[in-house]
């Protein structure tokens, strides 16, 4: 210390240690300048000049301090810094960027003090400037990190909100609208749609959408092949398209380059794609890892919710079916004759299972011995085809997409024999078809046949007014003393249920087997629905696809006109 002090003293004597005010000002460890209240620079130190690269003559009485700032900084100067200085006489630690002579931006922190004149008005502003390059860089990192953290928190909140909202949703359409609303709000998507694969897996049915025109209302069907959804559905991987033809999301067209962006998220349950979520933006955008995770998370939540909704519906349907079975069994055993039972059977399924039902029992020689109907007759129009198939094959038959023009009013039909086509029918979306089922009944009558001989009761669906002759003609090859034709027009596709109902009709001698079948039926309950008969009737797509698939008869059965007396027919008899 002493040594150092002595050195300093010697240096001072020699004139090397210059601590004159001028030296202190010019070479201070900070930039220093003075400006008039207008900002015009009148004095500046060397440090400031060397940091910024300006010559003294460039600045003195030529530049205002605000002229050295970036445009954004200039606004800040005018709206914050200048008023603050004027009102409180000083500012501290204001962060700004000074534009240097070579155009480089120098981040600085500045303190200013106003020197007042004799009458209190501002005379001069003195400002010290500190280089804040490193601090600013660090600050930017912090800001960036804070921004990311805020984003992550927001995403977590969005996901939590979606999860809790979905947990209460039990209808697929409800789930779709929640998902769409959430994604539009959080991902700021301009278009969104949620669609589920239909049974044949070559069509998508829209459940909900946002930002699309009316042609993409819920219920619309799109062919998978016409959309970009095919690949994500097949690979079960989300597709992120940062460049996409903007505004073309409607209809989910094939991929193409453009000035927008899109995301296709498959909805996957148990390694199987059940549908797709598509989002579109009108501007190109990038998808960070976090964005991708978030969107995948939303899709996963929605998939689970849809599966949950399916299971719920299935359970509810099983319960409803059990109740119906119990009721029907009770109704059937109350009466003794076949005719009474046939009538009870027809009535029993209205309205829980179908809008209309029709049971016919055929005796040999095409003779209709019993013919009863219940419910809405219009629902039975045009079911001859499947009735015939049911009778021919001995298997239950389903027609899930009966063309809507077949649903015309029988009254109108009567007036315009066959030439009439419902003008609106073709304009209706393809999903809006009714469905119907026909179940063959096999019938054993021990008291009027040889012991052990099985007799056949068969059923088909059809429009009562034209039913008997044609169908019955096909049925007459058997040896059975009694042939029955049972025509039902149900809306449900749960053929197990139908078979069971049919068994009730001939249930005098086989209660044990019935119980066994019922148990096995309960293990794989079909889902026929959600309660509303009307909706069920017109919207086959809402129903569970797997059940439908299970219920679909084997391909060979669908061939309508099998030759009579095939081995299958023989076996059934």
């Amino acid at each position: 210390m002493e040594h150092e002090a002595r050195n300093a003293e010697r240096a001072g004597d020699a004139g090397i240690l210059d601590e004159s005010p001028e030296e202190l000002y010019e070479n201070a460890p900070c930039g220093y300048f003075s400006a008039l209240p207008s900002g015009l620079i009148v004095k500046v130190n060397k440090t400031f000049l060397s940091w910024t690269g300006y010559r003294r003559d460039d600045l003195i009485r030529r530049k205002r301090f605000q002229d050295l700032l970036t445009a954004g900084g200039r606004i800040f100067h005018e709206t914050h810094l200048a008023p603050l200085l004027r009102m409180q006489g000083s500012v501290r630690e204001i962060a700004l960027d000074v534009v240097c002579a070579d155009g480089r931006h120098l981040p600085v922190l500045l303190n200013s003090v106003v020197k007042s004149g004799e009458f209190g008005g501002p005379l001069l502003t003195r400002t010290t400037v500190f280089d804040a390059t490193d601090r600013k860089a660090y600050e930017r990192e912090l800001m960036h990190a804070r921004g990311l953290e805020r984003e992550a928190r927001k995403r977590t909140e969005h996901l939590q909100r979606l999860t809790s909202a979905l947990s209460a949703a039990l209808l697929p359409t409800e789930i779709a609208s929640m998902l769409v609303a959430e994604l539009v709000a959080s991902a700021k998507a301009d278009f969104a749609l949620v669609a589920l694969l239909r049974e044949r897996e070559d069509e998508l049915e829209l459940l909900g959408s946002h930002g699309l025109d009316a042609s993409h209302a819920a219920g619309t069907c799109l062919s998978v092949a016409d959309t970009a959804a095919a690949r994500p559905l097949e690979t079960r991987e989300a597709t992120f398209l940062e460049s996409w033809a903007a505004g073309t999301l409607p209809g989910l067209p094939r991929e193409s380059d453009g000035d927008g962006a899109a995301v296709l998220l498959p909805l996957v349950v148990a390694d199987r794609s059940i549908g797709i979520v598509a989002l579109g933006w009108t501007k190109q955008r990038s998808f960070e890892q976090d964005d991708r995770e978030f969107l995948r998370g939303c899709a996963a939540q929605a998939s689970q919710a849809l599966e949950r909704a399916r299971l719920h519906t299935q359970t509810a349907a099983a319960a409803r079916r059990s109740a119906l079975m119990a009721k029907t069994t009770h109704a059937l055993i109350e009466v003794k004759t076949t005719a009474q039972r046939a009538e009870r059977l027809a009535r029993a399924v209205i309205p829980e299972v179908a809008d209309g039902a029709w049971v016919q029992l055929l005796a040999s020689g095409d003779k209709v011995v019993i013919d009863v109907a219940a419910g809405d007759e219009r629902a039975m129009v045009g079911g001859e085809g499947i009735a015939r198939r049911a009778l021919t094959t001995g298997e239950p038959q389903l027609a899930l997409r009966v063309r809507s023009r077949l649903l015309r009013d029988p009254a109108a039909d009567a007036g315009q024999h066959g030439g009439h086509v419902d003008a609106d029918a073709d304009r209706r979306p393809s999903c809006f078809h009714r469905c119907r089922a026909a179940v063959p009944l096999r019938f054993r009558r021990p008291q009027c046949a040889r012991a052990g001989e099985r007799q056949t009761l068969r059923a088909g669906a059809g429009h009562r007014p034209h039913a008997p002759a044609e169908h019955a003609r096909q049925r007459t090859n058997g040896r059975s003393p009694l042939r029955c034709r049972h025509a039902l027009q149900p809306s449900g596709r749960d053929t197990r249920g139908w078979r069971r109902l049919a068994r009730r009709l001939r249930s005098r001698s086989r209660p044990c087997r019935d119980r066994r079948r019922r148990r096995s039926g309960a293990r794989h309950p079909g889902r026929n629905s959600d309660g509303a008969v009307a909706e069920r009737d017109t919207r086959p797509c809402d129903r569970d696809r797997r059940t439908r698939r299970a219920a679909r008869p084997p391909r060979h059965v669908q061939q309508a006109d099998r030759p009579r007396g095939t081995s299958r027919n023989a076996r059934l008899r």
Partner: protein
Amino acid sequence: MIGGMGALERNNVEVLGRADGQPMVFAHGFGCDKNMWRLVVPAFEQDYRVVLFDHVGAGGSDLSAYDPSRYDSLQAYADDVLEICDALGLERAIFVGHSVSATIGVLAANADPERFEKLVLIGPSPRYVDDGDYVGGFTREDINGLLESLDSNYLGWSSAIAPVIMGNEDRPELGEELTNSFCRTDPEIARNFARVTFTADNRDDLARVRVPALVLQCSEDAIAPRSVGEYVHRQIQGSELILLKATGHCPNLSAPEETIAAMKQFL
């Protein structure tokens, strides 16, 4: 919508001057609060009923009333002005708006022309960003730069407004109020207000003004250049333009006397 006393509390409304005088509503611009009028208001207190207020999000306003989706356009701020006028039952009011509040005044006067007798627009600019032939003075990048400046400064905002009152020893209350006012500025709100202000385009609204208007233009204004002031003057039918010697964007602070004189001449 908040009516009655709600609007008065929400906007921290202060009424000064002659109770039976013609009402004069002062609206502050972006970055400040009603204290900006401190040096101007005393000149009008004798003859007018002076109404001061803070825009929601600024100064002593009710920050809980700030809803980013509502205050997503200047029209919402204009609606607030009309609500204040309603709450106080003001008629034939003179509206004095600084900076962005000049535009807010134009919107309010267009929405309810009967309410206002005159408009005083200090440093107005209907659009800050250049657009074709129109020169607003800024580009989109410039506005992004401003938002960044706001971000940097709010990080250490509390120290920037440390109440070091120098040169104001005789008026300590001045510094104190200002300090509090800036303390209460929520950084997020300031950012939103900046975005709404500097990305707005209200050029078409000028031609619809039917209230006599005065445009006060500073000679060197980095925010609203002279060409913009002249544009406003041209667009508002029958308006008067006074070019002040004062420089900067806040003549009400830097040259209160000149500002007052120009206003009085117009009134």
